[in-house]
């Protein structure tokens, strides 16, 4: 592709009288977390490769309020939500894609009650749609023979019933997709949800992410696939705890970008 990848903001598009096909909601992890930024970059390379006209909020982006709400601060959540809804409705946003299941859940399920109605997609759902439409092509060769195990993010799977989209994408890689005993509706949390990401774990005799990473490593995978930046962090730390750093923890967007040479 000859044209250069350029990330535009909603404000810039609006100034040119343009409207994107979809708003990419980057989220706090995708913007600020070193590891998650790689996911963000992989995802925009795919969007660019598939010639999706997208925009981000940029400096207008603000937390959905998910961790504040789950930590009991309903005031802060609603302040965030109402501000964001003001911004989104101001730009007439209709479709949103995000690589974070927590942003996804909040935007999709919790904003409508506060006046924010959008078609919200998790990036695995969006990527599947791109593949179905033929806008994106992947060749699985480089993953042939690789064992890949998928960890269901609670807020995507159990919360929103989406178990297939990530697996359909992984099937395209021609690797060997394996499952943990606790998967899908019985998938074990990585330990980050409910605002745990932002605090120390309460005292116990083990860490949730060590437990989950141990289970994933038990399937003898080459790659642990994640669909959530927080799960990614937790599992990466968990894999380190088990001294198995040769096993890679990768977001599905990163794997697809690699398979699509993007």
């Amino acid at each position, binding site marked *: 592709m000859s044209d250069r990848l350029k*990330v535009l903001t909603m404000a810039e598009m609006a100034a040119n009288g343009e409207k994107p096909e979809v708003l990419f909601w980057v989220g*706090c992890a995708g913007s*600020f977390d070193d590891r998650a930024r790689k996911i963000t970059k992989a995802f925009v390379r795919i969007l660019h490769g598939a010639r999706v006209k997208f925009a981000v909020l940029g400096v207008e982006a603000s937390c959905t309020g998910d961790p504040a709400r789950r930590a009991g601060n*309903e005031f802060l959540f609603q302040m965030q939500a109402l501000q964001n809804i003001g911004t989104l409705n101001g730009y007439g946003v209709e479709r949103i894609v995000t690589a974070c299941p927590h942003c996804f859940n909040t935007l999709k399920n919790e904003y409508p009650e506060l006046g924010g109605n959008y078609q919200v997609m998790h990036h695995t759902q969006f990527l599947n749609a791109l593949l179905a439409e033929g806008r994106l092509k992947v060749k699985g060769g480089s993953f042939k023979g690789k064992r890949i195990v998928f960890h269901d993010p609670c807020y995507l799977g*159990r919360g929103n019933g989406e178990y297939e989209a990530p697996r359909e994408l992984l099937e395209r890689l021609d690797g060997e997709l394996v499952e943990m005993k606790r998967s899908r509706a019985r998938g074990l949390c990585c330990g980050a949800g409910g605002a745990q990401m932002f*605090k120390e774990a309460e005292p116990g005799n083990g860490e*949730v992410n060590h437990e989950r990473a141990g289970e994933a490593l038990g399937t003898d995978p080459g790659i642990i696939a994640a669909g959530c930046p927080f799960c990614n962090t937790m599992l990466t730390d968990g894999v380190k705890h088990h001294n198995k750093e040769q096993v890679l923890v990768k977001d599905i967007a990163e794997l697809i970008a690699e398979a699509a040479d993007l």
Partner: protein
Amino acid sequence: MSISGIVFALCLFAAGGLFAVKMRKIVRNIRLGRDELINDRPGERWATMARVALGQGKMVARPIAGILHVVVYAGFVIINIELLEIVIDGIFGTHRVFAFLGPLYDVLIASFEVLALGVFVACAIFLVRRNVLRLKRFWMKEMTAWPRSDANIILVAEIILMGAFLKMNATDQVLAMRGVDPYVAVGSYPVSQFLRPFFEGYSDGALMTFERMFWWVHILGIFVFLNYIPYSKHFHILLAFPNTWYSKLKPSTQVANMDRVTQEVKLMMDPSADPYAAPPADAPPPERFGAKDVFDLSWKSLMDAYSCTECGRCTSECPANLTGKLLSPRKVMMDTRDRLEEVGRNIDKNGSFQDDGRSLHDRISEEELWACTTCNACTEACPVNIDPVGIIMDMRRYLVMEESRTRPALTAMFNNVENNGAPWPFAQSEQLRWAEEEGYR
């Protein structure tokens, strides 16, 4: 009406009356909760009840306990058809009043017998699992002496009831074969026929005493059982049905909106609002934010508490509990019920609730509440769609919004979200650094 008929009618009346009185108290207690209108999507609600409660859809996620439970459940529901005959016989002094049904009666009695044996065996296995194999989830710390005894009492009671039923049938057959009046050779007895040899050596008179004794043990046992269950974890056999009908149909990870907060936040964000405006004189006192006590929880959370049979599937799937944290979703439900019963006794005693200086927070600690990852493994695992996360969320809201009690790192997170729009201390102006560093800008 014979004397035994009168005695029976009195027992029936007393059992029904006592049960009704206790039920009224439980309904009153559930209504102490916060109002919440739950009547949307009725079709989906009936379907959920049919699948989860009637169809035991979530029980078989654990096949051994699940299948055994289906046997006990089917036995309980179907054998109770027999209760109708027992009640009619008891009041009018008839004997096997439905015998005229002929072949259908044979089929009914035969199926009751097979199920009774099934229930007997299943309950015996359940006792072994609890007391001999000591499955971990039945011995966790919230499973103190009473919850453990409660489970055993129920299992032993079911075994006694089923045993009496089968022995009643066995003595009945021996008497019928001897042609003793009023015993008639009807029904098919695939199980109790094997018990006959134990009774064949007795005289007619002794057998009639046995037969009546088993009959009375069976029916009085059922009356006692009926009045035991509202005090027991076993109440789920009734509440499973309404509780699944009122299930949360929204995505499990969707947290309920607090409309009152929406009003206040909108007011705050409205530049033309008068910040010093006094509320109108007739405005109701402001409701509490979040849950301090059972009164602040939705009535559905209180029904959840009464529906819990303490099976512990929630806790055994809880990531916090699995890693040794204090949190146990089952304990949250047990504590809620215990507190609600305590409040109920307070009302019984004083006419209305008198402040006892206690609250739900005395039973459920902050350490438990802050251990939850809101992953909803517990709500997924619950065979009757109980939602412990709803209670945890409401209690966290009280801690944070009424008491400003939180974890220090969460306070920092709140400040970051409020000041720079992210839970971490990064400036909003840095939002596009990822794009800049790749030359995407």
